[in-house]
């Protein structure tokens, strides 16, 4: 709906009907410290009962509120209706630091897992930044990013840039003083989720499945163990994040099932990029991108031989996982179990 459409809706509809449809509107009035509103009236009429001195503190007159409320509805209505949808991202190559051409064109699609390899400083973050800002030949690399096979209009670009990429790295922590339930509900609300309860529940269950040790609804997110909070972050990104692309910067071995974690993201229609040198993760990807001297040097499809390597690595990983579990339970390890 357009701004004008919202305006005529707001002018003719009692406020309580609007608020029932978009509960987020409560926040709009809280932000202006307007507590008691006659919501059975239209906003225009309800405002005539509000102390205008209060509004002046916010630098507003009554007609400003009406306009801002409609802007608010337009912004959040758009959020709820469309969000950011992407099926494929295509990168048209530019040049590396020496000015040499990089891989000409490559694409990543929803459900795909791509690993990104290369030493620190090789240009991994530059690549990500180019995707994030929807480069259009206007960044140092000269790359161009196409969405679903086409260049975006200015308006689409403005709306999407900075919203495409969700990031997960081991430096991230929870800082909010909320319980797991409050945290998930808050995030779901901000996404204007239609089916909030269901999403929150699925997300919680998934996080618990990933975490080595279960955690309850009423634990503070800041008190979760490393593995638990990583598991919650991954499940939350899969189920609730607005961004279609997920960049994972090394998931540490903090007692979560990393393979399952990545599968969940891919299954939830995300485009997954993992920056990692961990063979278990890198070989699990469909392709890997080699970054060298600021450019994409090569694109390698994971070969069948590499898939066999992966099987071996998975066996090793299973042994490690099993040993960790034994130690956790306070048991002793035996050498012969290693040989198997």
């Amino acid at each position: 709906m357009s701004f004008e459409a919202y305006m005529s809706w707001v002018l003719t509809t009692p406020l309580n009907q609007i608020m029932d449809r978009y509960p987020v509107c409560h926040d709009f009035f809280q932000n202006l410290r307007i507590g008691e509103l006659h919501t059975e009236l239209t906003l225009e009429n309800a405002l005539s009962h509000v102390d205008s001195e209060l509004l002046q503190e916010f630098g507003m007159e009554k007609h400003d509120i009406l306009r801002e409320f409609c802007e608010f509805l337009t912004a959040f209505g758009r959020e709820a209706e469309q969000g950011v949808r992407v099926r494929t991202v295509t990168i048209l190559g530019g040049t590396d630091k020496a000015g040499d051409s990089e891989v000409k064109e490559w694409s990543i699609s929803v459900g795909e897992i791509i690993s990104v390899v290369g030493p620190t400083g090789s240009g991994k973050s530059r690549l990500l930044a180019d995707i994030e800002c929807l480069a259009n030949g206007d960044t140092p690399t000269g790359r161009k990013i196409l969405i679903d096979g086409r260049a975006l209009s200015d308006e689409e670009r403005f709306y999407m840039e900075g919203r495409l990429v969700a990031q997960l790295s081991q430096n991230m922590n929870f800082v909010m003083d909320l319980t797991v339930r409050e945290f998930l509900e808050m995030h779901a609300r901000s996404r204007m989720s239609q089916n909030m309860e269901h999403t929150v529940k699925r997300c919680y269950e998934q996080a618990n499945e990933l975490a080595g040790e279960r955690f309850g609804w009423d634990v503070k997110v800041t008190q979760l163990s490393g593995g638990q909070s990583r598991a919650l972050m991954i499940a939350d990104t899969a189920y609730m994040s607005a961004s279609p692309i997920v960049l994972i910067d090394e998931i540490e071995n903090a007692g979560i099932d990393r393979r399952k974690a990545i599968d969940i993201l891919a299954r939830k229609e995300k485009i997954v990029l993992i920056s990692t040198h961990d063979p278990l993760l890198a070989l699990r990807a469909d392709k890997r991108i080699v970054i060298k001297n600021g450019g994409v040097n090569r694109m390698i499809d994971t070969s069948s031989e590499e898939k066999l390597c992966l099987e071996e690595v998975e066996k090793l990983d299973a042994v490690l996982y099993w040993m960790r579990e034994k130690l956790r339970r306070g048991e002793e390890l035996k050498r012969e179990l290693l040989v198997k």
Partner: protein
Amino acid sequence: MKLITVAGPPSSGKTSVILKLAEALSIENGKMGVVKFDCLTSFDHFRYEEKGIPVKTGFSGKLCPDHFFVSNIEGSVNWGLHSGFQLLITESAGLCNRCSPYIRGVLSVCVIDNLSGINTPRKIGPMMKMADVVAVTKGDIVSQAEREVFAFNIRQVNPSAKIIFINGITGQGATILAKQVQDAAEITSLRDSRLRFTTPAAVCSYCTGETRIGEEYQMGTMKKMEFKGDRV
């Protein structure tokens, strides 16, 4: 010359954002200048000087920082024009969380950090509400969910602002801000331009040096809290 006003709470990362912006813009050395408006002390000029960016620092001292800004912004612009800058950035700390040193027609950027509490965007007021761009820093150390909820709370207060996450250490996100700056208006003078929001009103006895507490010492513009019904 382009002018940008940058405001934000203390230690939110204003200087880092400006420095990363300068890198992303790749403006010729000496063609970009900064005016730092601060209250009592400031150490940021060292960081600008280190990068070869000309900087002037002004201290509001015992005056309201907002009033201090308005009365010095024209002088700042003249300094920028005479120095032949292509870009002048003013940086001010929003000391009472209300300071909104934004001018109509001049690109305004509010810098706020992701660690400052999830409801902070809803509390800051005009400094956030009136900004064209809200730059969020320190997002690299909190979860994706917290970044998204934070952005949601910003959008509530200012639905039309462009929200940009900027990593003040790696500079990630600065390119997006640079694009906004490239589209900013050119100015030659600020004479007769208007502020976007009124500065805090305050002409009372305390403004003029009163320190004693008590009704009889309070004169001028005062505002009283209500404690109706409570036993005080």
